[in-house]
């Protein structure tokens, strides 16, 4: 795609509107109380991380993967602090990353009969959705692994203490 030199203001507006989108979807998904605020902050973070990593890597799919992983880590951490399921915090955070535009262009080119461009956008949509899903799964497994490791060593300590006593 190449670097597009857009004024800084565009990025600020994107982060702001992305956050508004996150808050709106939180209301549609019936999320209550302070969790809306957590989701909104996460929504802003997800787009900021995406922009930075797009600037560095110049690749949409990689940037989505990185952004999803950062946000998923944030959601896992916040979920442990707030004692709520991870999905509640994670879904609003990912809203700005949803490939709605590319899905629309796929459809548009398909209807106009421009098959080569439709195919291009279709593979882009699948790769983007795949990157988001893969990022979430990866982070889930990493957290589970960490949790189990910590648990294992805590148990070991207890056993050793028991033996000493």
């Amino acid at each position: 795609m190449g670097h597009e030199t857009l004024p800084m203001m565009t990025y600020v507006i994107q982060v702001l509107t992305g956050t508004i989108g996150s808050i709106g979807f939180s209301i549609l998904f019936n999320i209550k109380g302070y969790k809306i605020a957590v989701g909104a902050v996460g929504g802003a973070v997800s787009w900021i991380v995406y922009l930075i990593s797009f600037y560095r890597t110049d690749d949409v799919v990689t940037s989505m993967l990185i952004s999803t992983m950062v946000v998923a880590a944030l959601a896992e951490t916040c979920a442990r602090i707030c004692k709520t399921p991870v999905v509640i915090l994670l879904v609003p955070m990912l809203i700005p990353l949803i490939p709605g535009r590319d899905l629309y262009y796929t459809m548009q080119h398909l209807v106009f009969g421009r098959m080569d461009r439709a195919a291009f956008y279709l593979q882009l949509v699948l790769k983007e959705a795949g990157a988001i899903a893969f990022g979430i799964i990866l982070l889930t497994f990493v957290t589970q692994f960490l949790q189990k490791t910590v648990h294992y060593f805590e148990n070991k300590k207890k056993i050793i203490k028991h033996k000493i006593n």
Partner: protein
Amino acid sequence: MENHKLVACMLDMGEILLTSGAEVNRIEDTLARIGAAYHFQRVDVFTITASIVLTVHTADGEIITQTRRIKGAQVDMERIDKVNYLSRKICEKEPAVKYIENEIREIKNITGYPEWLIGIAYFCVAGAFAVFFGGDIMDGAAAGIAAVVLRVMLRIGQRIRMNALFLNMMCSAVVGIVVMVLTRIGIGHSVDEIVIGNVMLLIPGVALTTSLRDIIGGDIISGLLEMTEAILKAAAIAMGFAVLLLPL
């Protein structure tokens, strides 16, 4: 008898989780944990998007199987949160079945946000994403107006229990027409951005991501079911918006 009621309660909790948009993994995990809390020797849960099958071997050797057919889905995070809280409490205290039944009844009575607030949320989401994808402020306003029309259409469709796919198609067609009229009379100018703002409200992006998650995580049947549903829905929306391409 007590055990039978308990298994029914577990299925109730699973049903609420599944219809509110939780992952299959979470449901199986929650039910297994509750079973362990009541000293069941064995808990087997099989969940797909359309049904839950639950078999338990109780402490005194009884084997109980119950199934539940799941219909309809409405994402509702508050319910997931409340069921999660309830299951934590059950695992800690092992309360009587009566108590769990009461709690479940209360969770089922949870209401969403008032209709006017949801309307505003529709306006904001569509407007915000129209600007997000490169429209100007007037495009945002046009997208917001179209989104409010979309919400009204969706409510009417749900009230008369219209087929979900057909409803999506019709709603996108109406939104397309509204956008066309709005741009003709001078509110907003780039049709693409205005429509994309509304597409964000309709597309099953969350469902697509969840389905891929289920597939990668090993729940292939549920994942494929969800994915098929998402693709069909996207196709229906695309067919609806094709109205924009008519030479009017």
